[in-house]
């Protein structure tokens, strides 16, 4: 019941978010600030996780395929496709749902509790739009870039692990990277990245904007932003896989 109520409230909220900004310059400044916070602030964690995932994938598949029936260069092929099709977009966005989503929910929720949102409303500012739209635009621009970085670092991690640990030559790994490459998978990765970035931002902003009560409720809203964001990403991942690969 609460889910239906929240969904209705969210849909009713959308026209306010996408209404015409009062001042494009202020929105631009806020968008740039958000791009910096989301992009630079999350780059190190995204690189760390994707690098390790790429390395672990290479090592584990090298172990699985060690029988000699499958050529070694397949490890490069597997690392590439796993990173492009699933890990770069989905794993990065689940991490971002935790890092960026909780920050956004806490930021907007804190503004609600300190009456900053009321103060802006009294000034005549459309707070739904001013507080949410720049975050949406920033995340749609920056998160696909982070996913691209995750892809590059993940494949690099796989390359290092495959050549230094699993005993492949660089030539074999590069052959695997070029083997049966389908650009359609890259398109699917960006479809996922854009969809997930919209999910992360809208869920987090919704939880923060409509928070009521005190610090405990703010903490709960922040947790809900992460949990609901992650669950919605997984559901969307399945739907995109069914639609684009099914």
């Amino acid at each position, binding site marked *: 019941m609460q889910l239906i109520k929240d969904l209705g409230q969210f849909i009713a909220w959308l026209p306010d978010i996408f209404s015409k900004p009062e001042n494009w310059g202020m929105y631009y400044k806020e968008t740039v600030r958000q791009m910096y916070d989301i992009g630079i602030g999350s780059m190190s964690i995204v690189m760390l996780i994707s690098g390790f995932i790429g390395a672990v994938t290479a090592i584990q598949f090298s172990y699985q395929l060690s029988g000699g029936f499958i050529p070694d260069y397949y490890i490069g092929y597997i690392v590439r496709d796993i990173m492009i099709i699933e890990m770069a977009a989905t794993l990065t966005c689940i991490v971002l749902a935790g890092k960026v989503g909780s920050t956004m929910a806490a930021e907007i929720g804190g503004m609600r509790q*300190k009456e*900053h949102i009321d103060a802006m409303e009294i000034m*005549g500012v459309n707070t739904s739009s001013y507080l949410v739209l720049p975050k949406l635009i920033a995340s749609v621009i920056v998160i696909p870039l982070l996913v691209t970085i995750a892809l590059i670092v993940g494949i690099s991690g796989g390359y290092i692990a495959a050549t230094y640990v699993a005993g492949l030559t660089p030539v074999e790994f590069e052959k695997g990277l070029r083997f049966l490459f389908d650009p359609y998978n890259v398109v699917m990765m960006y479809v996922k990245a854009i969809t997930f970035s919209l999910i992360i931002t809208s869920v987090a902003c919704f939880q923060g904007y409509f928070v009521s009560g005190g610090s405990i409720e703010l903490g709960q809203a922040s947790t809900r932003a992460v949990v609901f964001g992650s669950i919605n990403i997984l559901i969307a991942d399945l739907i995109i896989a069914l639609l684009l690969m099914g």
Partner: protein
Amino acid sequence: MIKAENIVKSFGKQEVLKDISFTFDDGKTNLIIGKSGAGKTVFLKILVGLLQPTSGAVWFDDIDVCCISKEQHRELRMKIGMLFQGNALFDSLTVEENIRFPMDMFTTRTPKEKRTQVDYCLERVSLEGINDKYPSEISGGMQKRVGIARAIVLNPKYLFCDEPNSGLDPKTAITIDDLISGITKDNGITTIINTHDMNSVMEIGDNICLLSDGKLAWQGRKEEVLDNDNEVLIDFIFASPFLQRLRSQALSQ
């Protein structure tokens, strides 16, 4: 002129405001007074449009604010300045950026014009030279005054203040009262203050409404407060034991 007509507000089954009608005088300092929990803040939030009444109407001149579009509401709000109980200054912005925010959002003034207006507002609240400080670097009284400066930066027609003296020592509270009263007179604006500070009532209350348990218990002017036999008003004025003793001594003499 701001007029509240038969305002009722309920939260679930709890009726917080019960059929309140009151007219706020133009160009005067209007006070909403009452004990904590009397419904003052809810009434003030309904007047500025942050809450919708369950029934009743709020008129700003000839506009019923309950029946206008969001766009019209935003236009009306640009004529309103508000000082919040907790100041509501943006922590990550400096004093100057806080005061400049409404100008940045709604005007096309040049940076020099904005700077001049910020300096004028800071001078008006006697806080020259703190432009680059953050709210956390100044005292509570100074934060209140910055809040007032931000509220008047676009020369509003109406100024709303929610508990402007809360958390301040008596001397600073008097300074804030004088400041608000002075701005009201000098700028010819209509001010509505929500307070339970008796000093404010006696010093700056041109037009007063007393709320008790969500009802309008009394209305009048500051000159009529002491010479009155309204039990709710007397109970409110002489709430402290010290004042009760003074009153009984005066009555016995």
